[in-house]
């Protein structure tokens, strides 16, 4: 079967011949694997021994292609990363598309190929999915929802209850690149900078950490929307502990810092798609950093701060000259400001 259509039309979501052309001509060849190829109503998976992790995420991004990535690649890696920071390796994934009538088939093909590539890289089969088409003007080209099933690492034991005073806060690498790349790609601000999204799979980095340290890793989360500040605030709230970070320790690329200064944004609030925060036992912090830095993509991992008990649980940033401030949660979207 060949998918020869030039544009997506309502018929592609109606379940008839056009839908079959789309599924069997585009999705199935791109994602091909035994479960998907059977084209049945559900993929059958043999449950392996151990604990399973399951997660779901929707991807809505404008523009759908941006420097460093695109919605398709994001849709796979986003879910892979949610599994990775839960201590799991992905077993299978489903993908649901909401397409806008009028979308060029070429744009869709691009994203499907990006998904296939990202899935291969993460070693996860896309075993099923669904497609719906909405009228022109009712969606930004396309939305993608993915659900992932993963097997939790034997050594992983994560959760806010495991976080203790004295634990160290580690960050996998430089922050703010994804959110800034998207903001600049919208071109409304007329700002040019060579900023690429950091979207990438975190499986390897997280996996190595669990291999080496096992239960000494107490908590982990990827710092997506809301940035590092939001993730740390969630942790402070869930543990009722205080988190203190060193302001100057936060790795930020010059361009990202320049754009943040210009637009009055705090890089700690800007979204990432390839960074995580890991909380590890104090005595293992150096070893953990060492593992991260020796793994490809973890070269700029750093010790961000530490955790202690205090009357009020919150996130504090301390500057090298002794000034302290509260790091707040992001409210709404980051908006550029002039005052």
């Amino acid at each position, binding site marked *: 079967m060949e998918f020869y259509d030039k544009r997506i039309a309502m018929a592609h979501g109606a379940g008839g011949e056009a839908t079959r052309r789309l599924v069997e001509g585009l999705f199935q060849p791109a994602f091909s694997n035994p479960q998907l190829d059977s084209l049945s109503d559900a993929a059958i998976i043999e449950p392996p021994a151990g604990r399973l992790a399951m997660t779901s995420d929707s991807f809505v991004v404008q523009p759908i292609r941006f420097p460093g990535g695109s919605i398709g690649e994001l849709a796979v890696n986003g879910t892979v990363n949610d599994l990775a920071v839960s201590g799991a390796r992905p077993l299978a994934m489903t993908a649901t598309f909401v397409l806008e009538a009028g979308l060029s088939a070429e744009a869709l093909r691009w994203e499907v190929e990006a998904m296939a590539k990202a899935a291969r890289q993460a070693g996860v089969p896309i075993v099923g999915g669904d497609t719906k088409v909405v009228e022109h003007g009712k969606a930004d080209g396309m939305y993608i929802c993915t659900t992932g099933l993963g097997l939790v690492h034997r050594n992983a034991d994560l959760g806010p209850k495991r976080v203790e005073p004295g634990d160290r806060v580690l960050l996998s690498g430089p922050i703010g690149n994804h959110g800034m790349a998207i903001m600049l790609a919208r071109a409304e601000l007329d700002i*040019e900078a060579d900023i690429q999204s950091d979207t990438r799979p975190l499986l390897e980095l997280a996996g190595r950490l669990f291999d080496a340290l096992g239960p000494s890793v107490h908590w982990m989360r990827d710092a997506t929307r809301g940035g590092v500040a939001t993730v740390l605030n969630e942790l402070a709230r869930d543990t009722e502990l205080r988190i203190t970070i060193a302001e100057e320790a936060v790795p930020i690329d010059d*361009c990202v810092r*320049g754009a943040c200064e*210009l637009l009055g944004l705090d890089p700690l609030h800007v979204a990432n798609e390839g960074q995580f925060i890991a909380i590890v036992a104090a005595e293992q912090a150096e070893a953990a950093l060492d593992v991260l830095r020796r793994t490809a993509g973890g070269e700029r991992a750093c010790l961000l701060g530490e955790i202690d008990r205090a009357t009020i649980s919150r996130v504090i940033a301390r500057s090298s000259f002794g000034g302290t401030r509260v790091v707040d949660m992001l409210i709404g979207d980051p908006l550029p400001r*002039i005052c």
Partner: protein
Amino acid sequence: MCLAIPGQITELFADPHDAERNSLAMVDILGVRRKVSIDLLQDDPPGPGDWVLIHVGFAMSKISSERAAEQLEMLAMLGEASTARDELFDGMTNIE
């Protein structure tokens, strides 16, 4: 009340409606580039290499690296022998 940050001019551009006059400049902020208006500096137009203070897409004033160095020097004198420092401090505060 107003967010303004330093940027360095890399290039000047003629006014799109008046080729005789440069009214725009590309400024660089840590590798981030934006075209800004330099019309507010028409009395003393800046050139490539100059540092300017940028606010809402306009260059507001030129930044003096000499003055900046003086300020830092003055700050470095704080805590030193007080009379010499006091003289320096008074001499530099730009009082009219």
